[in-house]
């Protein structure tokens, strides 16, 4: 039986355990042998995006130590997965490092591409707006970004549109950045919040009750604004929706 390692990014571990639980439960329901290595911490991206790639090396090494034994590594975060695949090139390319880079998947892409599943028998009677997190969309190519002249698709939509009762709303700007951007959110707080507000508005005027995304970091930023503004839009990570199923 294939062995799947569960990577729960640091901020999800600390702030949004329910997202980790949903991911774990969903993969268990699918029938996978899934293990959460207890000595994991972070992928290293927070430092690297701030320019401290070198300081991140011990973090990356810790990741590799924890995960190199698995056939697949799955995580409910497009951004962290993108970082592992793209930027672990700063490590010595040992067999373990190569294996980890090749086999780390974002949750939706793992379900669609590796498991070949689309219909997870979900019931979700809500009006949902999908925020396409940039690193998932443009980095991992979970969908075709609007800038490119090529056949449009989206793996997240593929999974969600099978849900019973769901209404996926269309957005004015279908894949604009939410303005989180890691440390960008505190280096440029005004621009970051302005971008976030407008992303939320786009969902609101198109009737979304719920904004979902592959990345909780985007949603943490949007939720922070929503709560400060006392708006009633909710944010729900994609794993929590996919876990509303009858598998």
């Amino acid at each position, binding site marked *: 039986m294939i062995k799947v390692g569960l990577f729960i990014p640091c901020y999800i571990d600390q702030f949004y355990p329910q997202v980790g639980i949903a991911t774990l439960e969903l993969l268990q329901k699918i029938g996978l042998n899934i293990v959460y290595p207890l000595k994991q*911490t972070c992928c290293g991206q927070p430092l690297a995006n701030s*320019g401290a790639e070198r300081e991140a090396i011990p973090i990356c090494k810790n990741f590799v130590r924890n995960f190199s034994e698995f056939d697949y590594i799955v995580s409910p975060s497009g951004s962290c997965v993108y970082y592992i695949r793209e930027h672990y090139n700063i490590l010595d390319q040992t067999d373990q490092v190569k294996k980890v880079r090749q086999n780390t998947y974002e949750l939706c892409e793992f379900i669609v591409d590796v498991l070949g599943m689309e219909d997870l028998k979900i019931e979700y009677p809500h009006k949902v707006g999908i925020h396409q997190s940039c690193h998932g969309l443009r980095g991992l190519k979970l969908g075709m970004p609007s800038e490119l002249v090529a056949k449009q698709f989206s793996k997240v939509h593929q999974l969600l549109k099978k849900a019973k009762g769901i209404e996926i709303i269309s957005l004015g700007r279908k894949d604009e950045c939410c303005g989180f951007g890691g440390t960008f959110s505190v280096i440029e707080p005004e621009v970051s919040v302005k971008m976030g507000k407008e992303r939320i508005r786009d969902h609101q005027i198109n009737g979304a009750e719920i904004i979902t995304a592959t990345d909780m970091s985007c949603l943490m930023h949007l939720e922070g604004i929503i709560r400060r503004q006392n708006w009633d839009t909710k944010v729900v990570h994609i794993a929590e929706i996919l876990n509303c199923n009858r598998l």
Partner: protein
Amino acid sequence: MIGHSEKAAQFLKDENRADWHDQTLWMVRQKRDRAAWSVPEWEDLREEASQIKNHALSNLDNYLLQFEEKVIGNGATIHWASDAQEFNDLILRIIQKNGAKKIVKSKSMLTEECGLNPFLEKNGLEVVDTDLGERIIQFRNEPPSHIVLPAIHLKKEEIGELFEEKLKTAKGNSDPQYLTAAARSHLREKFLAADVAITGVNFAIADTGTVVVCTNEGNADMGVHAAKIQIHCMGIEKIIPGTNELAVFTRMLARSATGQPITTYTSHYREPKAGGQMHVVIVDNGRSKLLGNETYRNSLKCIRCGACMNTCPVYRRSGGHSYNYVIPGPIGSILGPDSDINKFKDLPFVSTLCGSCTNVCPVKINIHDLLYDWRQEISEKKLLPLSKRYLMKITGIVLAHNTVYNLSGKVARWAIRNLSGELIYHRINVWGRERELPEVPRESFKQWYRKNTLERRSVNEQG
């Protein structure tokens, strides 16, 4: 110098204007999308354009010499300038040698980069920018806020007031057609009186010695045809091999820039008019150094279409002037630090690294990757503030060690839950100025997992 984030905050204070700025440029991005979709082979064209630029840059030594030979053969004069000072001096010499006084200039980011206007003015010459947007900002004594739409930060009412003062237009009239007509008759006089016409160059064709200038207003032509002396200024990276290659770029430039199939005028200048002079000035000003830099040389492929600005969600919401560098937006945030790393070290951080710029770039510059690379270089050169460097070191230690990480997480969550709002939302908490912190749980996922999966499993196993 006030950095980007402060200037952006200033820009956003006038929310209506900021929204208008964002929406106007988003409209340009949408026009670009429609124009790109009208060419089914668009992505192949991007690849071809990228390869042509790679090829031209890799063989620049040969192509530049070939170009020089052809220019001379065509009866024009060629000049070389290694930096901005040399460039400015050279232009001044041409002007003074001919006893010229009045100069008209069509749009050229190179002359902005080198500070040609103020230099010539200091030497007692009149320089009139003839592109409408450029003329507007020249009247206001401002740099362009966008490389294709230099006055995009201004509204028509402001231009109405400006023209009222400068061109004596009717009070309170801000009808664009009226204002354009006023500018046109004003500029006609300048064209007719000019001794020298200066232009930028979009493409320089090595095998014909031709320079190609793309404009929508025909102002480059008006200047060049009327003045006795024409001077075309180009960076070394403008060279392309031949007219076949030009065809690839003319299909992409205007579509990427404004969503037009092609600019209204695509002017090819090859030889001096009868009794006139044609000068081509080739400028390095840091470009050959950039060419030798394996990491960033890709940025030399830029054809200055401005698509990365129009698509950039940060540029749209902070305005071109907030970048401080002559070329704003994503590509400017790579070129700026290359010209002066100390002065522009904040620019690579002015991005969420969303990657939209890379996807619209017609010559496939991996803009967001290069911004990431600059961040590493700036950090390695210890140009980040000391506080940030220490923070990075500490975060690095915490995140590399599982036990330290677990403990720090517990402490942080306890603090957010239990400390008073005043303390948590102290003004040093930049996140919290306009955003709530997450509602923190008592238990991390790891704690939950230990309790619910591992402990239960061991109970089951024992039972």
